[in-house]
């Protein structure tokens, strides 16, 4: 369909980092780069977000937080790890409290390396994520259609499908 990709909303979370990538992400969203012209909105709310932009590594304290934020996002969703810390743990990797990159906690789809990642690279990553987001949305829609016909078949057979979560 190609429409869903016109409205990628971001959730930005900064983990264990030097805040360099954090600032760069915000720089991408300033009027200079005008991310809104692609329909990108930086929401602060996981329930309204499609793309999870994570900077910084995962430590023991924020692991649960990242996990919860990811769970609160409705699928289809895409995770982008920005900067080396988010990709691997980076310079903090050996610290006593660091678990590692974002992929130690949640499935990461796009890796944007750099210390700090440049805005151009970040935007590039987001564009890739948008394409993936569209792909997943299409997949989900196809699945739902399939499921509907399946459900109809089941209903005809007289079996209640119920409304579980």
């Amino acid at each position, binding site marked *: 369909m190609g429409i869903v990709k016109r409205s990628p909303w971001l959730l930005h*979370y900064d983990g264990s980092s030097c805040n360099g990538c954090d600032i760069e992400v915000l720089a991408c969203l300033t009027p200079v780069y005008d991310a809104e012209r692609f329909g990108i909105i930086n929401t602060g*709310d*996981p*329930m309204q977000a499609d793309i999870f932009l994570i900077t910084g590594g995962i430590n023991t*304290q924020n692991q*649960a*937080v*990242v996990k*919860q*934020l990811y*769970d*609160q996002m*409705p699928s289809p969703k895409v995770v982008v790890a920005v900067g080396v810390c988010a990709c691997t743990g980076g310079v903090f990797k050996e610290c006593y409290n660091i678990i590692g990159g974002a992929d130690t906690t949640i499935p990461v789809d796009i890796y944007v390396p750099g210390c700090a990642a440049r805005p151009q690279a970040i935007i590039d990553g987001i564009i890739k994520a948008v394409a993936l987001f569209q792909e997943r949305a299409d997949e989900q829609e196809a699945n739902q259609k399939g499921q509907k016909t399946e459900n109809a078949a089941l209903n005809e057979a007289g079996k209640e499908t119920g*409304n*579980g*979560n």
Partner: protein
Amino acid sequence: MWMIPFLICFPFVVSILMYTIRVNKIRNIITYISAGIIMAVVGLFAVQWIAGGCREMELYYHTHIIDMIMLAAVWLLMFLVTYLSFKHKRKIISLLSIIPTLMITYLELYGPQQAEIAHVHVDRLSVLMCIIIGIIGSLIVIYSVGYMHGYHHHHTEFQDRRYYFFMLLFVFLGAMFGFVLSDSLLWIDLFWEMTSICSFLLIGYTKTEEAIANSFRALWMNLLGGAALVVAICYAGYTTGNLSLSNLVELGALGDAKAVIPVTLIAVAALTKAAQMPFSKWLMGAMVAPTPSSALLHSATMVKAGIYILFRLAPAMSGTTTGLLISFIGGFTFFAASIMAIAQTDGKKVLALSTISNLGLMVACAGVGTAETLWAGIFLMLFHAISKSLLFQNTGATENALHSRDIEDMHGLIYRLPRLGAFMFIGIAGMFLAPFGMLISKWSALKASVDESNILLVLFIVFGSATTMFYWTKWMSKLISYTDTEIKVKDITKKDELLSLMIHAVLMIALCLLFPVLSTVYIEPLLVEVFGTSTAVLPMGVLLLLIAIVVFIFFVPLTAFRYATSIKVRQIVSYMNGINVGNNKEFVDSMGENKHLFMTNWYFAHTFGQRKLMRPCIWITSAWLVVMLCIIIGGAL
């Protein structure tokens, strides 16, 4: 019509029984039976009267002996008040009872010969009042049996004087029936005093320091009104020689100068009864009484006596200075009380302030005194009687279960005490939401006050509706908010309490559905009776629209609900920056501990608090009252 004397006398007989029988079980059974009998007789009375073509009736022309008995009763009440005020060292209050009693005795025994009048007058308004008192009053009596049982179970510090409590409730019911059916001002005065004293005794039921202080405040304010009523009666007796209320109203409607002072004084007396500013403090204090008495006296029926008499006077007040006096006070009270209700966290106090506020709107409607406003006023009264009675009883039952009546403690009530929560929801919705009748009455009142070019009243209604919506909605949202739902509360509501609540809720919804029918079949003819002309208050378009809204409001959420329960959803935890513990009630703090999250409503106690606003409001209304009274009386003399 044996039913009229029966309705007045039967409750008095029952009250004697209540006082003498000290065995709770037997007394409870008698209470149920008598309440049932009262309800049945009122029903029979109404049905028979309506089947007979709703004819206006004037009865009991020669009642010399009854008059004398009534005079004796007035003296008895005087002795009671004098005794109690001496006992509690508030001697000065007794004067408010002694002087009027002497005046009325003098008028009756040595005053000029009065015209022969009918002492009882039955018309649509009085039958409507009888139905309200009979049905709601009896239901509240039934409710109180269960409630008082629980009350004394929890409040062991108070002496159990239930026999006394039920005696007063029945005395009060009898007095109310007498009040709305009488046309003789002398009878009205007696029943008036009787309701005041019942209210006084019930407020002081617990005998605590606070209760006694509040009960005496209620007493002197109501007696002051009673005194104004007596002065009006004496004045009317000496100038017109006719002590019939309907005659007085007719004279007033014709613009006779002789009627101006009595009408004004009676209207001022009604202000005290209806707890309008500057006399509203007594109703706030009355909330120390057990809840059924608050429901019965201080919201559903007794305060409506003031409204009832103002409705009767409406044609005489229409377009006069008296009307201006009354409508300003009503409008101002509507606005001011609703603002003060915002700052209250005590559920019963919110109910009290909202009662004052809604009564204010009814008073204003009566003060404007046109057919349109009276229509609005009567519907306000009906809806208010049912929903307020429901809310008071519900708050009482909730308090028995939660041991608190603070609104903040009622969070998630709909999950913890589903039945009570649902009833409370219905009651509050009835108070202000479309399509319930309060709103359409407000519509009509607004339109009429624009028609009458009453600028201040328009502004009061407009701003008052906004504040009313605020405090009700925040209470409702507290009921459904999802906090601490795991704290288990035992629902100890008795069956009789539930029965009463259930009937109230059903009545509320039925009234909402049937209200266009009621309007055309009953209320509009009532207005013809009062004003002599017929006006279609609700245009057909609005009526149809209303029906559409009613259907819509009952239909849409239901369908939406069915849809919402049929779809597949993924449930997630609420947003707390990712540190939700997982139950939506706690979050992880910076030390890794689970911390409880609790959100309170806004009350703005420092901005809208009673402490800050009450005094200026009382000063403004007192000044207005005094100045206007001087103008009216000075102009008439």
